[in-house]
């Protein structure tokens, strides 16, 4: 499992999960679920086009994901999601389907772009992934405090001199970069789960921002390592394991939180009763 051709996947997966945890942490706080859902779908035709043209998929991904960011900002101005934006997303998928139909390996290409590919990380890919991940990580560390304040309470952040629109653009751009790196490995349909599942679970565990962020990273790494090893061992698609592991983390953590909150309520109630 740790042979030379898998090493790349392990390194790439670890790096991607790390930045996905960081960015996903804020996706959950900012309630940007729609952006996290839409960007991978918008990036999908980019990878398909690159596949068709025979170029490195990263180019296609980055271009389309950049377009996606601009589109999202336009859509945010029009209003929240409605039928139109849903149709736009499906249109992107349709374009991707068309592009892939023009290649010679329609089926396998569709599968790996939608559901991920464990073996697809070449040395060149790995360098690109690591560079992007390091950049995103540095940016996230740099912006941690303003981003946390802006995400939790935009009005207060504005008073401290933080410009909400600029934060939004920076964040969306970082989200776009993570999407572009994660898509080839876990697939367009599972990027959302990797981004959102571990942090949502972590935030159910801890109310301390830094601790919660640390848990996000731990859960994300568990998710990706589990997915890679199970996929390697069973030959089943990695997307399946990411989907299931991510969902399990999410459900378990939410369950824990509900139980914890109920315990607290019972304790408070018994205190009140004892006082009477």
């Amino acid at each position, binding site marked *: 499992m740790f042979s030379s051709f898998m090493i790349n996947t392990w390194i790439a997966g670890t790096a991607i999960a790390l930045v996905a945890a960081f960015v996903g942490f804020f996706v*959950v706080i900012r309630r940007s679920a729609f952006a996290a859902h839409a960007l991978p779908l918008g990036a999908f035709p980019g990878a398909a086009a690159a596949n068709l043209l025979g170029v490195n998929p990263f180019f296609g991904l980055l271009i389309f994901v950049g377009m996606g960011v601009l589109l999202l900002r336009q859509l945010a101005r029009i209003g929240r999601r409605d039928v139109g934006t*849903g149709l736009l997303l499906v249109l992107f*998928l349709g374009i991707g*389907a068309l592009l892939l139909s023009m290649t010679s390996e329609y*089926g396998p290409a569709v599968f790996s772009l*939608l559901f991920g590919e464990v073996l697809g990380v070449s040395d060149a890919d790995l360098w690109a992934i690591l560079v992007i991940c390091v950049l995103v990580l540095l940016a996230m560390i740099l912006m941690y405090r303003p981003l946390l304040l802006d995400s939790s309470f935009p009005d207060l952040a504005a008073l401290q001199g933080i410009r909400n629109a600029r934060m939004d653009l920076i964040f969306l751009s970082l989200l776009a970069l993570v999407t572009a790196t994660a898509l080839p490995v876990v697939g367009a349909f599972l990027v959302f789960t990797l981004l959102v599942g571990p942090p949502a679970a972590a935030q159910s565990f801890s109310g301390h921002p830094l601790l919660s962020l640390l848990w996000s990273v731990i859960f994300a790494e568990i998710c990706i390592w589990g997915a890679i090893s199970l996929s390697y061992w069973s030959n*089943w*698609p990695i997307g399946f394991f*990411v*989907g299931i592991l991510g969902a399990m983390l999410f459900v378990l953590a939410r369950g824990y939180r509900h139980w914890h909150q109920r315990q607290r309520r019972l304790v408070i109630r018994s205190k009140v009763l004892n006082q009477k």
Partner: protein
Amino acid sequence: MVPEVMNELWRCLSQSAFLNSQPVQTALIVGACAALVSAIIGVFTVLRGNAFAGHALADVSSAGGAASFLLGISPLLGFLGMAWIAALGMEWLGVRKARERDLATGIVLGAGLGLSALFLYLDVTTTSTTGAAVSVMFGSLFAVSRELIWPAIGASLAVFVLVALLYRPWILTAVDPDLATLRGISPRWMGLLQLLALGLAVAVCALAIGAVLATALLIGPAGAAIRLSRRVAQALILAVVIGLTSVWAGIWLAYESYYWFSGHAWPVSFFVVVLVFLFYVFAMLLAARTRARTNVTYPTMREREN
């Protein structure tokens, strides 16, 4: 004069290679079923603000479609079964805080699609079906088996019957749930029945243009029609027209594209999605212009946002 024109038309049609090809005939019929049911159910779905639920159901139903090859059942049944399981699950969980719903639905979608991935992989490795991924996700309308025509028609009829019977209660629950309860109509049951009908529509659409693209037919024609109509009946008719046009034109374009691109046809689903999108944009522009010109906001039915 008219009978002569009619005769000429009939001669053209009956001799066209397009209409004489079996796969095309199957495609036209199944496609029409998909367009009709999705238009009708779509109107109620969008009115209820459930567009995202339709999208989620369609995506998750892909797992059923993929499993159908493993189980040896018809893909229509596979899509339908999964859609109904998901619909019941959604109804049981209920709609809680909007924020939870966003995250939770997304996670469940991911798990469902992950399941599709597994089934599609097993399809390739254990059965002899090829191209399962493509036909489940993006549809291969020309490759649909003739045996599925009657089941598709049957599913569509079931939806028609449901709508015909429950038309008024559904509108009432969409517009004023409290009043509906007062009149003895349970919004929860109505909602459940709508979800089940939605499942039927999802199944037929998934069969026609693939699970992942089915959303376009489910919400597109309905969304466009609602923007342009003032009454539900109007919207229903308009949605059917738009849906049917998109599907049949899509089929024809895909057929012709075989000749344009020397043997390499473009997928039907692509054309259908593009046409639906164009119709929607056109409807939006038209509606905006009409509002601007008359300077009155029509009491159009609101598209409730998710």
